[in-house]
């Protein structure tokens, strides 16, 4: 048995870290491809930007201020991944000590808005009728759950990058290229499945 808080926290955490539906994870992978563990400060900043973005649309939809058509979001999400991947390839990995590029804020926060639309449709289907007075706590718990999932995913990505780049000595440029091409490739596949013709 769970409390309302724990229930929605678990739903949020498991939603973003769902291996069967990994589009949000793929975005985080694309977002983190240009970083190594030495950029952890920048990554925290970036993750905060993403959180800011998806919280805005999630809360907006949760309070029923806005609604988003599911089929449009499912096309937009892979597009956010592809654009992030292309940006990675064009600009290359971050240098040691380099601070965040201005476009990174846009990628994280702006595309966060779009991923938040996806989260909100999921949350809506998990809300119980007659519990509107609990909405704030449900939204907060779900958002914290997403945060937790997000932190875990980012840490795993950075750990793998550390292993590949710092331990196995693969050049950062190649590693960024490999991750970005992977993210773009899978997203093209997702897009192919979503486009209605």
């Amino acid at each position: 048995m769970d409390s309302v808080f724990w229930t929605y926290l678990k739903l949020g955490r498991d939603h973003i870290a769902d291996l069967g539906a990994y589009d949000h994870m793929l975005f985080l992978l694309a977002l983190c491809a240009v970083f190594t563990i030495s950029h952890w400060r920048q990554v925290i900043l970036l993750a905060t930007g993403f959180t800011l973005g998806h919280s805005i649309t999630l809360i907006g939809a949760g309070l029923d201020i806005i609604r988003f058509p599911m089929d449009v979001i499912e096309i937009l999400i892979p597009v956010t991944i592809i654009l992030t991947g292309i940006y990675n390839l064009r600009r290359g990995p971050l240098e040691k000590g380099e601070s965040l590029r201005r476009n990174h804020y846009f990628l994280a926060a702006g595309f966060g808005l779009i991923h938040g639309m996806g989260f909100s449709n999921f949350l809506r289907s998990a809300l119980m009728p007659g519990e509107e007075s609990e909405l704030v706590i449900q939204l907060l718990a779900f958002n914290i759950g997403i945060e937790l999932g997000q932190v875990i995913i980012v840490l795993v990505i950075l750990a793998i990058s550390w292993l590949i780049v710092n331990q196995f000595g693969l050049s950062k440029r190649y590693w960024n290229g490999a991750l970005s091409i992977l993210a773009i490739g899978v997203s093209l596949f997702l897009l192919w499945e979503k486009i209605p013709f």
Partner: protein
Amino acid sequence: MLWMVLSMILSFGNTNSLDHDIHISKCIIEYSESDKAFQIMMHVFVDDLELALQKLDSSSLKLNTELEYEKADSLILDYLDDHFQIAINGKTTSYNYVGKEASEDLQAVWIYLEIPDLKDVNEVNVRDDMLTELYDDQTNIVQIRYKGEKRAYFLLTGKEPSDTVTF
């Protein structure tokens, strides 16, 4: 290396749903003080329910439409018998089928059940593994409302399909 990861992810995707199809059902079990009964309402997505029922009877179901299959209600009850059980104070308790209706957005069905003649409910156990045979990530949220403000939530999945609350 890249191809390994790529083919891993792609083959992974084939066995699961690639997109975020929402695999959630909701069930509210509310104690009615005036009727001394549990009133149960269950929200299930209609396309998933049809898919599950078609394994029992391959007729075209057309739930939520005027052309609905005549045996749809009894099929639903059969399916619930297998996938939704309630035990009160340790004893499995049968429920009555009250009816069903389309959800506001027509994407789901509300199923209504009732357990009458209850007194002194101390413990409720729910087993709800509906649709988990179809989807690995199916989550069934059960909320129990007992005596006023109290709320208990169960998040039930194929791996952990049952949970208990004591009052």
